[in-house]
C-alpha cells in the first residue's frame, strides 16, 4: 500500500462510462487506493483538451490521468479517438517544457476492468511519487486557496 506522499496530486479526468465505472466497481469491492487523486467526471475523454491538462499542472497537479473507453467502445462513436491522438501529441510537448510526458497517463479500458483501474491508479501514484518535485508554477496565494 503506497504511503501518502505530499508531492503526489493526481487529477483524473474520467468519462462517466468506462472511465468511472471501473472506479465504482473497485469502490464496491473496497479496494484500497491512495487518496492522492481527485476526479473530474466528463461525458467523454474527447472533452479533455491539452489546455485543461496544462492548467491542471499549473494548479497543483503533479500527475494527470485521462481515463476513457477503449477506442471502438466509445458510446459517442469514437469521439475518444481524436482525444487519444491529441493527448499523445501533448505528451511530447510536456517533455519539451520540462514537466515531463510521463506525468500524463492515458488509460482506455472497459467498465469491467476494475482491478486494472485500481492497478493503474496505484502504479501511477507510485510513479509520480518517485519523480523529483515539479517546479512550482503556482503563486503562493493560489496554493493556499485565496483568490
Amino acid at each position: 500500500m503506497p504511503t501518502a506522499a505530499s508531492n503526489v496530486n493526481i487529477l483524473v479526468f474520467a468519462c462517466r462510462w468506462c472511465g468511472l465505472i471501473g472506479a465504482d466497481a473497485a469502490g464496491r469491492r473496497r479496494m484500497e487506493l491512495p487518496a492522492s487523486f481527485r476526479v473530474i467526471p466528463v461525458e467523454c475523454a474527447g472533452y479533455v483538451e491539452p489546455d485543461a491538462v496544462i492548467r491542471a499542472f499549473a494548479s497543483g497537479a503533479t500527475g494527470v490521468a485521462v481515463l476513457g473507453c477503449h477506442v471502438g467502445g466509445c458510446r459517442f462513436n469514437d469521439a475518444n479517438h481524436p482525444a487519444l491522438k491529441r493527448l499523445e501529441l501533448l505528451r511530447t510537448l510536456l517533455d519539451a517544457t520540462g514537466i515531463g510526458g510521463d506525468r500524463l497517463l492515458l488509460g482506455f479500458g472497459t467498465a469491467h476492468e476494475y482491478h486494472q483501474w485500481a492497478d493503474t491508479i496505484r502504479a501511477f501514484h507510485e510513479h509520480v511519487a518517485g519523480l523529483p518535485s515539479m517546479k512550482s508554477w503556482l503563486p503562493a496565494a493560489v496554493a493556499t486557496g485565496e483568490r
Partner: protein
Amino acid sequence: MQNMTNQKKTVLVVGGGVAGISAALDLAAGGHRVHLVERGHDLGGQVAKLDKFYPTDHCAFCPLWTEIRRCKESEAVTIHTLSRVETLEQAGVRHRAVIIESAPVVDPALCINCGRCESACPKGVARPIWEHAYPPVYVIDRDRCGDCSACAEVCPTKAIAFDREERKVELDLDEVVWAAGFDEVSLAPMKEYGWGTHPDILTSLEFEAWKAEAGENRGKILRRSDRAVPRSIAFIQCAGARDLRLLPHCSAVCCMHALKQAQWVKRRTPEVDCVILYTDLRTVGRDYYEYALRDFDGNGVRLVRGRPSMIYPLPRGGIAVRYEDTSTGKREIRQFDMVVLNGNLQSTLARQPDPGARPDLGGEGFVTPASISCGFVMEPADVTESAIQASSAALRSILGTKG
C-alpha cells in the same frame, strides 16, 4: 384497416432479458402498459451474466444498464422479479394470467449495498447482485441459508426479512409476449463429453463465469482443478446440439461465443494454445466472419474441423480429447488442460412441464407462431436478432396480430 392506435394495450412480457426488456420499452414508448415478469432477482437475463459479448468484446454495461434503468424508471412498466407465470388462460380475445411473485429476502428499496450482511453470514449466502445492476443491492439465497439471522441483525436499514409472503397477482391482459430466454441443458447423459468427470471440463457459461473480469479470478485464465495457468484449451462445438439424441437444433450463438472466449484467452494469455473443434463454423451476422478470421499476428485461435468421439480425464492429469481432424483425415488423441463445451442451450419454456403456464411449443421446444414470442424461446438467436424480434413482437402485440 381499423385504426388501432388509440387503443392502449396491457401486455404481459414473460422474461426480463435483452428480448423482454426491448419489447417492454417499445411497448412503453407507444403508451402501452407492460407487466414484465422475471424469474431472477433482477433484469438482464443471460447477457447480464456474460463477461463480454460479441461482436464488440465489451462488457454488458452499455447494452443493459441504460435499458434496465429506463425500464425501472418507466411508469408504464411494472416489473415483477422473482416471479413466474402460474397459469395463463385465454378468455375470448383477452388473456388472464396469475403471476406468483416472491419477495426477495433483501428489500431492494431499502438495501444500501453496504455488504454488512455478507460479512456477517457464516455460510457465504449473501452476495452482491450482478455487476452492473441498477441499483446495486445484495441478495440472499434462501435455499442455502442456515436461518441464523445474523444478516438481519447487522442490516442498518432493516432491509432483511425472511418471512415475506409470496404474492399472487392476477392480471387481465390484451396480449402476452414470450421472451423467457434459454438455459443450459445438462450434458451428463452424453458420456462422450465427459462433463462432470473432471473439474476442467466445463460448459461455456461455466467457463464464462470462471474467467470473468469481475469474477473470482479477476479475469485470469486458470484451471479449475489447481488454479494453474492452462497450457491448452479445447472448445468443443455442437456439444449436445445438432444431435438427435438431445437437442436437434443448432443453438446459433455458440460458434461466435466460442470464438469470443477463445480469442479473449489468446489476448489475455497468448501462450495458451486454443483450439476450436467445430462442424460448421456459423458466422452469419454483421462482421462475424471477419471476427472469426482475426489471428492476432499469427498467434490466433486454431480452428480444427472435426467432432470429438470421446473426452475423458487422464490418470496423470489433463484431459484427453479423441477426434478426427477432417483436414488430414487422421484420428487424433490430444491432451488438453481444459475443455469448454458449447452447444447445450435450450429454451426455458421447453423445460416447463406445466402446459398451463406456457404457450404451445413446436416439436423442438420453441414457441409456435400461434403465440407472440421473441428471443431464444422463438428461435435460437443472438442479441441483435433478439432485439429485432422483440421490436417486431411489440408491434404484433400492439396490433393484435400473431406471427
